[in-house]
């Protein structure tokens, strides 16, 4: 630290340095990166082609040749989990990114400007929240049609209200601070104040909400796939794999367990990294 003082350090480098100091977050980040790499290069990593059937070897329990076993059509579960992660995570991340960006901007605007702007934004989110989330997702994706992007759009739209509410509340608590007034007295424009002074101070709970939101999104996507509106088979996807394995759950556990474990582990890692990121972004916690 003393040595590097002379050097200019970017804010994000600082955050990263603090993140690395947090052992749990660092380990989670590394594991998450490994998982993401495995999923991105799943075609190369997977031991089998994900939709290659082997009707002579259906329902085999985990063995050396099939570490996760095979499913009802004799497809290698490990390969399917790897390839399925692509769709699940891609759609989940896309949809959360959509809802977080749109929701936070709307929420910040509502909290910051108040008045009629706030009224309109909040009433719209209220209306959206009054409709059950899944019903809304079903409606949207039924209207848009199936497919990766449309599913992301449907799930993303339904999650916007959560982010609006959260960001608005955080913005309200930041709004009273004198440094906003000081920034205005320095000649900063409203947009600049929101982006540079309100956002960074109101972001921490949104970050945690993003990591939680990825979990919710994966489940919602699987729900959509389950009713046939999400990603169409044979494209594997964690949620639809769970759904199809459900039928055989009592006699053959690997089909539900491994996609389930994949979801749980990925979620926990996302959450731990998100927690660490939130702490790392708060300079006051720096020791």
């Amino acid at each position, binding site marked *: 630290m003393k040595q590097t*003082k002379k050097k*200019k*350090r970017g*804010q994000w480098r600082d955050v990263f340095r603090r993140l690395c100091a947090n052992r749990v977050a660092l380990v989670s980040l590394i594991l998450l990166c490994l998982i993401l790499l495995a999923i991105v290069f799943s075609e190369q990593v997977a031991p089998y082609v994900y939709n290659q059937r082997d009707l002579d070897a259906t329902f085999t329990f985990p063995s050396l040749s099939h570490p996760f076993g095979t499913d009802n059509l004799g497809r290698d579960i490990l390969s399917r989990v790897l390839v399925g992660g692509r769709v699940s995570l891609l759609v989940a991340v896309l949809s959360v990114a959509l809802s977080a960006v749109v929701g936070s901007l709307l929420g910040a605007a509502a909290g910051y400007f108040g008045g009629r702007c706030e009224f309109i934004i909040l009433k719209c989110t209220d209306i959206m929240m009054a409709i059950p989330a899944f019903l809304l997702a079903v409606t949207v994706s039924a209207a848009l049609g199936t497919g990766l992007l449309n599913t992301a759009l449907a799930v993303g739209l339904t999650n916007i209200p959560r982010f609006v509410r959260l960001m608005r509340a955080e913005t309200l608590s930041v709004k009273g*601070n*004198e*440094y906003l*007034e*000081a*920034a*205005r*007295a*320095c*000649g*900063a*424009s409203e947009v600049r104040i929101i982006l*540079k*002074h309100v956002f*960074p*101070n109101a972001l921490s709970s949104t970050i945690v909400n993003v990591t939680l939101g990825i979990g919710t999104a994966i489940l919602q996507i699987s729900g959509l796939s389950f009713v046939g509106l999400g990603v169409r088979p044979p494209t594997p996807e964690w949620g639809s794999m769970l759904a199809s394995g459900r039928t055989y759950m009592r006699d053959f556990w690997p089909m539900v367990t491994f996609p389930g474990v994949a979801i749980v582990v990925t979620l926990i890692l996302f959450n731990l990294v998100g927690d660490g990121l939130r702490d790392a*972004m*708060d*300079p*006051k916690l*720096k020791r």
Partner: protein
Amino acid sequence: MEPLLELKDLSVKYFTSDGTVEAVNGISLQVDRGETLGLVGETGAGKTTAALSILRLLPDPPGKIVGGDIRFQGESLLEKTEKEMRAIRGGQISMIFQDPMTALNPVIRVGEQIAEVILLHDKISKAEAERRALEMLELVGIPAERGSEYPHQFSGGMKQRVVIAIALACSPALLLADEPTTALDVTIQAQVLELINQLQEKLHTATILITHDLGVVAETCSKVAVMYAGEIMESGSLADLFDRAAHPYTVGLFQSIPSLEEDVDLLRPIPGLMPDPTALPQGCKFHPRCPYADERCRTVQPPVEELSPGHLVKCLRFCGGAEQAQEE
């Protein structure tokens, strides 16, 4: 020469659901280049409102400038567009806020916060702005290395220095200091005031120092204006007010300061409280608390009377009867 800043009959009202708050009622002020004006008054006298309206930063709604004019370098600030105002804020007029603890953004490094103002007003590269920010830090007596630290790593006095550095980073012509030392303890107060004075001389900045501390005024200002219930009751040079205080309110303020020489058990406060700004009294605003008040004070608005050049008083006792005042 025309004054740097001139307030002409400025009136500000807050329109709230509980009634209209008459925060500033027709104040007129002049500040010349390089000069320090002390704006003194009790809490709620309208000092901060006056300062905020100069920057056009009144919370609107409910605040509104309802009358008068603010002229800065010969131009009316009330006619400027929002964009022009942004160029003035922080560039030509800047403001120091009361509480340094909350006036800095906790998640941005202080060096960067200073650089931000410079970047907003001068067309220079980011690296250049950061270099100048560190120079400003040195100027207010903070080692440049600390520019990469966050506000919570600074003490209150240091934070106020940073705030001053931000305010003066673009060498403004006018500095509005809104009780810059109220949140600091006495030794730090003295340091900060001295710093403001030094920098002011170095950068030729005029200052309006808002305070309720007459001691601070005596130390730093060349002109003083005393505010009460949104009006300027008396204004003049430092000597005019400290040696020849005329208005009963000013006199009362001085009397309520404990003397070092005498051994007193009780302070001599001005009896009563500030009037409710939603229902100001008729006539002279000070008459309910004034020991000299008579029937006329209850009904007649006192006009501004010039006792000697530059020494203005708003009190009926001096109206057309300066001799009478001299006797007392």
